[in-house]
């Protein structure tokens, strides 16, 4: 996998934001694969780890803004899991690859695009 980002996108915020980015013809790097989930809170640590094992250069979880999760606590849980995952990776010294959480609203396509751009830049700079 060369420089591929696996992005878990919640169907209430990030997924429609990504769609909107498409409708507006906003461009972002091609090396991203979106996996649609009903809530960021559905994403489990093993999903992130397996994506990294498969060779992903970065794994993103994108969910609703703080205080605006359709399922109240989903985005908070996702954030905690992402933090936990980073700790697990640090434990085995595999913390060079970004695992990050982004919060956005469904009408914020620019936030989706800038998240993808930001992570792509980090990947390029670390030479993957």
């Amino acid at each position, binding site marked *: 996998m060369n420089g591929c980002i696996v992005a878990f996108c919640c169907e209430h915020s990030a997924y429609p934001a990504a769609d909107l980015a498409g409708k507006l013809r906003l461009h972002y790097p091609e090396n991203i694969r979106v996996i649609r989930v009903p809530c960021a809170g559905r994403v489990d640590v093993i999903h992130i780890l397996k994506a*990294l094992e498969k060779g992903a250069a970065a794994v993103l979880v994108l969910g609703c803004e703080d205080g605006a999760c359709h399922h109240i606590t989903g985005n908070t849980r996702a954030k905690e899991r992402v933090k936990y995952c980073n700790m*697990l990776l640090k434990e*085995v*010294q595999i913390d060079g690859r970004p695992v990050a959480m982004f919060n956005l609203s469904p009408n914020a396509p620019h936030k989706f695009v800038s998240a993808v751009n930001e992570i792509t830049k980090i990947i390029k700079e670390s030479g993957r």
Partner: protein
Amino acid sequence: MIIAERKPMEEIKQAMAPYKKVLVAGCGTCVAVCWAGGEKEVEILASQLRLARSAEGNEIVTLEATVERQCEKEMVEELKDKVAEVEAVLSLACGSGVQTMAELFEDKPVFPAVNTTFIGMPEKEGLWVEMCGACGDCVLDRTGGICPIVRCAKGLLNGPCGGTRKGGKCEIDPEKDCAWVLIYRRLEKQGRLDLMREYYSPRNFRAVKRPGRVQAVKA
């Protein structure tokens, strides 16, 4: 239930260092409920090991399996075929489960991946607290149902040490409640404060002769 906590990763990695194919074995009872050694933790630990060893250029192959209770011979026997394929077993069960595995598969090194810590219960999500020390001589009748052996930092049996901090907190660990304050309040609610005036003689801490054995009445 039994509460356990995963060992530091360094210890686990070191234990697994000589091996190229291992079985990561979980237990579906206590350690699963306290998020230390169930199926999910097995998955995560196996994944971490694979990632780490792959980065080192020394791949490890992991088989994963979780049985309902690792302290039951019959259930552990189900893992026979998988154990035969590996060089070592990494068990996420409590000490009882690890030893059952080790006894059944004597020819394979079995390593513990968790530290068994205490008998406890959930206080809130993800937080487990010690309730019982398995001391073999329960005194909960005299203390309104609050164990001074493990919930008092000093294990005192005859009232508080006098160092209780403001707010009823323990002198040794200000995050913890003074068990004797809790006992007092509980007995007060029940109108049984007279119990606090009874003096209990020094305790025989060898009430449980190690290793313990309990023979229940055969049904």
